[in-house]
């Protein structure tokens, strides 16, 4: 048992449907853990409970020794947990750079009236945010698109911008919800390299959902498998690949995306 990040018996019921049932996991600092399972297994629901979008029916989310279950979303982000969205949710009518700058806002020191009166201290903070945000764009190979509208980017670029934006909140734990969805094999491979890089550079702990098995098996050190809301297996990529329950869950399902 560690104090870093722990989910204790999370249950999420939607009316009669139990989307997640008794889900527990403990993640060590610096780990890269995968969460896989057929469509509708409840993976995104787990992320939604961690980040405060859903309050679990029962169970607890423990983060650095604190019970953060059911806290407002923005407060959880401020405590160092960031996420990306499976169905991309960018600020489409804002520029790529502005998208990333939004993530700095929760740490801003200027008061609003300083912004309104155009005080120099606020101007300096804006400039600093602009520069740091640009740094994140460089990291995700998006710098040349800084002034484009986010909505005009290609699909793979939008996925990377989601990651840049999450990184800019300066998280300790990063949750990636199907970051490679819709990418071609070439882009997926580059993404795996990027994830490794940002993890090393920012000392991140990463918990990710992904359907692309090659991506997950090549990247994650530990994998958890969810089926119909129930955790059916946990282990190294090798153990998961040969686990009979996992094979059954995947083969028993009709083809998934």
């Amino acid at each position, binding site marked *: 048992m560690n104090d870093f990040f722990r989910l204790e018996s999370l249950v999420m019921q939607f009316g009669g449907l139990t989307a997640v049932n008794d889900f527990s996991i403990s993640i060590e600092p610096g780990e890269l853990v995968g969460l896989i399972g057929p469509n509708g297994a409840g993976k995104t629901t787990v992320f939604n409970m961690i980040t405060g979008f859903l309050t679990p029916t029962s169970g607890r989310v423990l983060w650095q020794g604190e019970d953060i279950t059911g806290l407002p979303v923005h407060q959880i982000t401020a405590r160092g947990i960031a996420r990306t969205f499976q169905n991309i949710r960018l600020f*489409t009518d804002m520029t790529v750079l502005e998208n990333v700058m939004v993530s700095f806002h929760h740490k801003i020191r200027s008061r609003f009236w300083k912004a309104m009166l155009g005080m120099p201290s606020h101007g300096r903070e804006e400039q600093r945010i602009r520069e740091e945000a640009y740094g994140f764009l460089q990291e995700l190979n998006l710098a040349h698109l800084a002034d484009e509208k986010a909505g005009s980017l290609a699909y793979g670029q939008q996925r990377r911008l989601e990651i840049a934006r999450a990184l800019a909140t300066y998280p300790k734990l990063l949750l990636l919800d199907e970051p490679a969805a819709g990418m071609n094999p070439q882009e997926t491979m580059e993404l795996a390299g990027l994830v490794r890089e940002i993890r090393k550079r920012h000392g991140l702990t990463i918990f990710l959902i992904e359907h692309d098995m090659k991506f997950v098996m090549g990247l994650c050190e530990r994998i958890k498998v969810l089926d119909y809301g129930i955790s059916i297996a946990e282990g190294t990529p090798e153990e998961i690949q040969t686990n009979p329950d996992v094979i059954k869950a995947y083969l028993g399902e009709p083809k998934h995306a």
Partner: protein
Amino acid sequence: MTWKGKDMDTSKRNLYCNLAALCLLALVLYLFDRHGTEYQIRILNNMAVFITLAVSYNLVNGMCGLLHLGPNAFITIGAYTSALLTMSPMEKQMSFIIEPLIWPFSVLQAPFFVSLIAGGVMATIFAFLISFPVFRVRGDYLAIVTLGFGEVIRVLCNALQGVTNGPLGLKGLQPYTNLWWSWGVAVFTVLVITKLVNSSFGRAMKAIREDEIAAKAMGVDPFRHLLLAFLVSAFFSGVAGGLMAHLITTISPTLFTFFLTFNLLIIIVVGGLGSTTGAVIGAALFAWGGEALRVVESPMDLGVFTIPGIPGMRMVLFSVILMVVILFARRGIMGRNEFSWDWLFSKLGLNAK
């Protein structure tokens, strides 16, 4: 490679351009103040008041993407507060014939400037009080709650005779609002709201407009930022209400119906929701058009027969314009674009480099 942002020369140039534009405006105002007709001065004053109203309304509806339908409430509150403060205790005693004015309004008197600020502050206080129910809901529900609040304030204005003098209203206010006051407030409002919109706070507001879920996930607290926009908007609406009161010099509840809100909505939609420049252009066109189109309400002699004047015809025209804009040019005149010197200079082919 690092991000350079704007270089020093450009921002200096923009500063000089702003100052030059302000001097030009001051010159124009001076000339009209000295030589303009009463009619021209009235249009210019209306223009400035509507610019203030539209720019502050646009902060909530355009920048935050809320459908707030109650700015008339805050304008009312500002107008009454300001008027009650500039009237002398004697005047008030004579006006409130049905029911005497309650203390402390009955004895308080303040200079015009102080009364404007007080109007803004009072509007902000009311905005704060209703913000908790308002921001529990979004979309159509928020529209209905704010619409209801506007109506409640109007009804209270009629009913609370000890404060507002009921349907009789307040008459004989000093015409303090001149071109300097109205345009001074308008320029200040535009500058301050532009600064806010272009700051980190404004970005947070736009992020909420674009995708509230994603904004929360990036650490933005929607309630705080919507509240900020709502309060700032209410403040300037209140100040503009004070200006309006001392421009018309007579106020009564009929002046501040939903109709006023509807006009503001037309202004910001035609100008371009989410563009401060658009709000300014829309307000200017509205104030000018409102007077220029008076002809459609006067009887027309077509030689063979005469069309009798139809009062309210202007509003029909405005509504038609709104419908045309919504149907064929939904983004309005400016879309979400803003005027900037950089844009102007590059259009003129005069860019620094």
